[in-house]
């Protein structure tokens, strides 16, 4: 059976996933070596059990993110913080110096031209913002860190192929914070 790999996009811009797609023809090679079992690039709703490797893009920003990341951790053998938002909270953390209600007011009332009004939360609304956007490893154990904004395709390819070969890669030479 091929290794089961998942990717997920939490509080990020999807840039890391775009960089993933930038692996171009190497994607074909990877598709032969692994089964992608969950990803924003495919149509599946529930995060599956028994995943070997999960790449997490994005910071933990809402109650939903937190719920998801805990579930993912419990169902994944090897968790990779994929990109600066997952690793450092990066741009999403720039709201951290303000209270969540002020952030929402700024976005949905002050800067809204159509239907101004902060969203509602909970069952009928959107997921509640956590007090601060934080990196993934502040909530769950992370096995490997792949910094970069976004990590270059070469770094992603290197990390995935090494993991598939059963090695623990050190992507330090190929990427860095802010890359």
């Amino acid at each position: 059976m091929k290794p089961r790999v998942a990717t997920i996009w939490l509080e990020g811009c999807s840039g890391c996933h775009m960089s993933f797609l930038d692996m171009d023809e190497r994607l074909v090679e990877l598709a032969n070596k692994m089964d992608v079992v969950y990803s924003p690039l495919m149509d599946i709703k529930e995060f599956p059990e028994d995943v070997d490797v999960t790449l997490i893009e994005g910071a933990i920003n809402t109650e939903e993110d937190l719920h998801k990341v805990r579930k993912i951790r419990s169902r994944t053998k090897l968790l990779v913080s994929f990109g600066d938002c997952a690793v450092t909270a990066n741009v999403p953390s720039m709201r951290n110096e303000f209270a969540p209600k002020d952030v929402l007011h700024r976005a949905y009332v002050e800067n809204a031209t159509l239907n101004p009004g902060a969203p509602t939360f909970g069952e009928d609304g959107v997921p509640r913002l956590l007090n601060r956007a934080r990196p993934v490893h502040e909530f769950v154990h992370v096995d490997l860190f792949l910094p970069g904004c976004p990590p270059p395709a070469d770094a992603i390819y290197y990390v995935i192929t090494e993991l598939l070969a059963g090695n623990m890669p050190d992507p330090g030479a190929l990427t860095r914070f802010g890359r």
Partner: protein
Amino acid sequence: MANQNVKIVTLVIDGKDVSAQQGQTIMQVAREAGIYIPYMCHVEGLSNIGACRLCLVEVQGQRRLLPACTTEVAEGMVVTTNNERLRKYRQMIVEMMFAERNHVCAVCVSNGHCELQRVAQKLGVTHVRMPYLHPKLPFDASHERFILDHDRCILCTRCVRVCDEIEGAHTWDVRGRGTESRVIIDLDQPWGTSESCTGCGKCVNVCPTGALAEKGRATAEMTKKRQFLPYLTIMREEDWA
């Protein structure tokens, strides 16, 4: 003209026999021997203060680690500049620098030209283990040509020293303690209102991060020029009479 009375000492750095002039620092001698010791507050051409602790080295017979930038070489010294223990401390120091302020590399004017970013990569820092403080810090854009972004400041005080020692204006200083410390202008006032600032821009060019930058620079556009410093220092020391 070379001073005939200069005393030469010999010492060992990382197993390598080296000779040096008495009065030189471990940092200087290591650099001449091609041995890299990481640093952040040190910059060639300014006084050394041993504040950032990144250049800590082991000296045989000393229980404590010593900063290479402020420790003078001595006859028979045996120095280790890199091992597991030092790497561990250095990584921790860099992580604390990141955790203390809001260094969002991806959107920083100095992205790609930043000494903190470079040192982090060199030391293999892939993430920060302590929780980020995410402090709320002011931004000073009152000067007509420069900006001061406290989010990126690591309190190396290069700006303070270059302004005092080279420009002679002493516009910069530091106020507060610990995580409350800030670099300040004159009597802690907006940069644009400073009467002592000559607008020379030396502080901007020695700043290792994006804390001081030229106005109008977008992400990754701010490169610093500091080749001028050693020359200026030599010119000041030369006896022209």
